[in-house]
């Protein structure tokens, strides 16, 4: 009995679509039981609510009584809503602050920390510096947001610092002025986010065969050439992962905006997720809030699909080379 089972398993081709011997199939059926608790929880907490949100986006509802079906009215209203467009414009700013700047700065910082400081000084120095960059990532982002909200207040530490260094003329209500609120929030988000790519890229750099760098160095390649020719191509998989996860985080950002500005002043820092939260729980327009959430969900799915497709294409090209 046992013998036939082993040989059957050994003969099984690697392709998953290949027909399996009946014995194997019966085994697979038993494994379903292990998926059952997870699947039930998934349906209750994610599947069901997601479908309900999509349905509610086609209704008018205040959360009390029965929702009234109104078709696509919420969506036509949404596309004419200036706040909605403003919030997505601000999302682009969030992507710059949470993806573009941290990824680029993280690449440079990680390779400087790893190549220059880790090699030419003690590795301990490099890890102490890395910890300083990573520290904001450890904190509850809302708590960090509240500290920054105070720093940027008119009587906060940032204006105090400007006074001390003789730039008191620049004193400003950084979060209260619609012109400076968004750049200020972006600055805070760069501070929050920078440690993540630094840590991921430093781990990735350890994967690279040091002989590659040594050989290039012997051949006279300077740091910049080695960075371009060895480091960047070698850590491309990690770069993809960082860019994808940070982009999704930027599209979903809520806590810092809540803590810093509540989307104000005059929607200058409003983002889709805060806009949806406000519509749900402050304006009690559940249908409209659901429409905002549904559009945000679709955008995230599309962005993720594009990223994963690009990564897949890239890997295939690498294999062909």
């Amino acid at each position, binding site marked *: 009995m046992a013998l036939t089972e082993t040989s059957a398993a050994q003969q099984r081709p690697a392709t998953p679509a290949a027909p399996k011997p009946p014995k194997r199939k019966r*085994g697979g059926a038993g494994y379903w039981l292990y998926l059952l608790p997870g699947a039930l929880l998934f349906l209750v907490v*994610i599947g069901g609510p997601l479908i309900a949100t999509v349905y509610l986006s086609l209704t008018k509802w205040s959360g009390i009584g029965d929702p009234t079906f109104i078709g696509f009215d919420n969506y036509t209203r949404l596309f004419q809503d200036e706040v909605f467009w403003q919030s997505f414009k601000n999302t682009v700013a969030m992507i710059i602050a949470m993806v573009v700047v941290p990824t680029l700065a993280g690449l440079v910082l990680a390779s400087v920390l790893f190549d220059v400081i880790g090699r030419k000084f003690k590795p301990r120095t490099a890890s102490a510096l890395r910890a300083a960059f990573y520290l904001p990532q450890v904190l509850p982002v809302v*708590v960090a947001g509240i500290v920054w909200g105070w720093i940027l207040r008119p009587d906060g*530490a940032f204006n105090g610092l400007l006074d001390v260094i003789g730039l008191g003329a620049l004193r400003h209500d950084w979060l209260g002025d619609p012109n400076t609120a968004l750049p200020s929030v972006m600055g805070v988000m760069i501070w929050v986010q920078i440690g993540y790519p630094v840590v991921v890229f430093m781990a990735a750099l350890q994967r690279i065969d040091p002989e590659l760098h040594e050989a290039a160095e012997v051949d006279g390649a300077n740091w910049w050439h080695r960075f371009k020719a060895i480091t960047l191509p070698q850590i491309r998989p990690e770069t993809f992962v960082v860019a994808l996860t940070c982009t999704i985080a930027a599209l979903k950002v809520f806590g810092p905006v809540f803590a810093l500005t509540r989307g104000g002043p005059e929607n200058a820092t409003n983002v889709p997720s805060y806009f949806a939260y406000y519509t749900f729980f402050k304006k009690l327009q559940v249908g409209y809030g659901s429409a905002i959430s*549904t559009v945000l969900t679709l955008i995230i*799915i599309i962005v993720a699909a594009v990223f994963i497709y690009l990564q897949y294409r890239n890997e295939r090209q690498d294999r062909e080379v």
Partner: protein
Amino acid sequence: MAVTTITAGRPKSPRKSSDRHRRGVSRWIILALVTIAALAMLVPFVFMLLNAFKSPGDYSTGGPLSWPSEFYTKGLSNYWHQVNFPLKLWNSLLIAGSVAVLGVVVSLLNAYALGIGRVKGRLWIVGLFLLANMLPQEALIYPLYYAAKQVGLYNTQLSVIIIFTVIQSAFGTYLLASVLSTFPKSVLEAASLDGAGKWTVLWRVVFPNLRPTLAVLLIFFFIWTWNEFLIPLVMLIDNSTQTIPVALASLQGDRLMDAPTTNAGALISLIPAVLFFIIFQRTLSRGITAGAEK
């Protein structure tokens, strides 16, 4: 390949010695620049520490950058009592701890069926879990809020525990399923030859092998849940159920706090997270290397 291209482009061996000499100085400049950047990252913490131990009067006369004229701890104790901090700490610990354990168990069970059981349609199922991990919480929050009210779970820690167990295990399932799909077949076959059933194989063979990965996952789930905000904000409205971040944010929202109390509250709220980070760091680096060595 890339290396040869570079050499072909610049065969400059005579410059090598001067290059090395120059690097001797430049490495100190680089160290100085990176250190300044790292210190700049810490400036907000210095501001916070400086003002957490200041009296409100001191703050209004001396401003945010002055050295505290006395070591004032009433801001800290005010915040501690005002929000009943030990209770908040307990709520956060209860929620994050339960989610970490339950999330890992659910992830392991799911991944066992998907990665080792290779149940039909597993690619689609893993895809669904991955998708769930990317969803904005706004797409779930209103139905969850409404349902929790209907079944009497609104404003209970249990509601948040259930929700985050599922959200975190969506990620855990995705990760563990791919780890387990590379699990050595020979080990499993040897176990089933010995007559071990699926349940025994899971706990006696798969679980011990995965322990380092599971430890990392446990810590991630704990920290992620600890730092979560939107769902606890919506679900927990009561002083007796709120978590640390929600408590700080709702006090700040009421504009009840002067600058020193804000900083004192933030300081108290940050300490547990920093402690966990210090405690977990060893496990994390050990776990990651253990995973990589396999």
